[in-house]
């Protein structure tokens, strides 16, 4: 039955409705697939087989009763940054080893309402900090299409699980590219919604002014189905929007005829892989062939997105991660004094990138440096946001690469943090402006590294 795991979400939903197979059979096929490919891919930190089959039996009952949603009975993977009640949620960190949240995240409650099946919790860079999933304290996830390469990050486990047919969809989170860049490196669709479109309640916070939950899936339509389920107002997240949730699936029917597609010249830079530029140019040409109108645009402050991001994010990180002291949850360490116990707990519980960002933020927010770093970065953020506002007076969407390279080898960038940061250079600016973006497959054939190049399309809020 393992071929069932290769269906798209939409095909699987249709099969369930036509009684071609049950959710229990579909779920077992996914669990079998996980059993056969996980030794190589290592996308999951926890596989929840018992939970999945229990969910599947309940879903089969709902499907028999009729009126079930498209996600009913569909197995999905959840980034291990998202709280699942009673199921270990680690954020990829030693400091949260064994932590079982006493509640579900809003997005999990939404998925449960629709009757999804929890296949497991996906690997990630610790606390979502990284671009390769190598920063996980537990394991390195391998790119399913090139096992010696990274899957991207931080939602690398989610992207790899979807690409390797170990789930029909997955949830990830995106702060500076953590859905789009791994989707890009693994050849799946990844969508970062507009800031506020999806509630962050129950999502372990990294940078609260940027974090957003979104779907990874094998088709655009599948991603639309998942977004339709998880989007919406949640009174427990005051930044979640009260705007009505549109019908994303029917929006997929709209063609691109007459659509003004902005092509920002700053996103086609020296040093990007020729294969990436070629694939993205070809994808834009295909949009034009279908009736879209290309418009060359400029986003003049693009170069400043990376330094802006790496001030604002560490500042928010240093505040958000202050809560991890090993007292109410987590793994405490002893110390002579209370303060030493905290420092020992945090020093041994956090990995290198998390410590770097906490220290960077602590330094940038300390007396005498606050204005020069944090306030300066917030002002440049205004300029970056204005660039997009001005661009969207001329165009409907913006098309650009999601990553300057295809998947890179495991270990290639772990020694130099700045090199790793540059892996997100094309995805950082969009969340600073609060905008949505989606990574699509741009190349129709395997490239030399067997990893697909990606096109990123950003829209207005």
């Amino acid at each position, binding site marked *: 039955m393992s071929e069932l795991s290769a269906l798209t979400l939409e095909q699987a939903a249709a099969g369930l409705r036509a009684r071609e197979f049950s959710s229990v059979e579909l779920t077992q096929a996914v669990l079998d697939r996980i059993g056969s490919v996980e030794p190589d891919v290592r996308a999951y930190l926890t596989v929840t087989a018992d939970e999945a089959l229990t969910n599947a039996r309940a879903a089969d009952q709902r499907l028999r009763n009729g009126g079930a949603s498209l996600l009913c009975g569909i197995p999905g993977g959840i980034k291990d940054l998202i709280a699942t009640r009673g199921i270990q949620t680690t954020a990829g960190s030693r400091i949260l080893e064994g932590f079982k949240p006493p509640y579900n995240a809003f997005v999990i409650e939404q998925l449960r309402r629709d009757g999804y099946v929890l296949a497991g919790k996906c690997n990630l860079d610790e606390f979502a900090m990284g671009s390769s999933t190598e920063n996980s304290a537990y394991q390195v996830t391998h790119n399913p299409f090139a096992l010696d390469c990274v899957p991207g990050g931080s939602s690398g486990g989610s992207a790899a699980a979807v690409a390797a047919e170990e789930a029909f969809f997955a949830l990830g989170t995106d702060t500076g590219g953590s859905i789009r860049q791994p989707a890009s490196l693994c050849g799946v669709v990844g969508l970062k919604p507009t800031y506020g479109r999806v509630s962050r309640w129950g999502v372990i916070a990294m940078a609260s002014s940027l974090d957003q939950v979104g779907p990874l899936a094998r088709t655009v339509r599948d991603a639309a189905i998942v977004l339709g389920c998880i989007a919406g107002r949640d009174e427990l997240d005051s930044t979640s929007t009260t705007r009505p949730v549109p019908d994303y699936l029917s929006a997929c029917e709209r063609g691109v005829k007459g659509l003004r597609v902005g092509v920002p010249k700053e996103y086609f830079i020296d040093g990007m892989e020729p294969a990436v530029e070629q694939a993205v140019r070809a994808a834009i040409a295909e949009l034009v062939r279908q009736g879209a109108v290309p418009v060359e645009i400029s986003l003049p402050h693009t170069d400043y997105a990376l330094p802006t991001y790496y001030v604002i994010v560490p500042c928010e990180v240093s505040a958000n991660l202050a809560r991890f002291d090993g007292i109410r949850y987590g793994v405490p360490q002893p110390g002579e004094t209370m303060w030493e116990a905290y420092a020992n707990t*945090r020093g041994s519980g956090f990995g290198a990138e998390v410590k770097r960002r906490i220290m960077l933020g602590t*330094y940038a927010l300390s007396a005498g440096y606050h204005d020069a770093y944090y306030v300066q970065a917030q002002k440049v953020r205004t300029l970056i946001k204005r660039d997009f506002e001005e661009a969207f007076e001329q165009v409907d969407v913006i098309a650009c690469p999601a990553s300057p390279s295809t998947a890179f080898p495991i270990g290639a960038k772990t020694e130099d943090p700045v090199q790793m940061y540059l892996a997100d250079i094309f995805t950082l600016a969009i969340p600073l402006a609060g905008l949505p973006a989606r990574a699509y497959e741009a190349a129709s054939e395997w490239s030399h590294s067997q990893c697909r190049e990606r096109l990123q399309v950003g829209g207005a809020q």
Partner: protein
Amino acid sequence: MQLDRAQTAHVAWLARLSLTDAELERFAGQLSSILTHIQRLGELDVADIAPTAMASESDRNVTRPDEPRPASPREEILANAADVEEGSVRVRAILEETA
């Protein structure tokens, strides 16, 4: 922008992170190179630009009536704490140690 070992150690203590000597050495170099990259923000004249804290459309505060609501079960919350006594999380005294 260079951070030396002593500055790095000071920042680590402010952040309550105990670091090994090897970590201090490595982080001092890495943080210096990141700060050098960030320095570029100073090139822009933003004297007249308002800061953006959040890009969402609503910067409103939200209030609700102060009424009791259902919460997570106490035993599920306490199950995550390492040191529990009589239905509560036990912590070290702060005043005695800092006095």
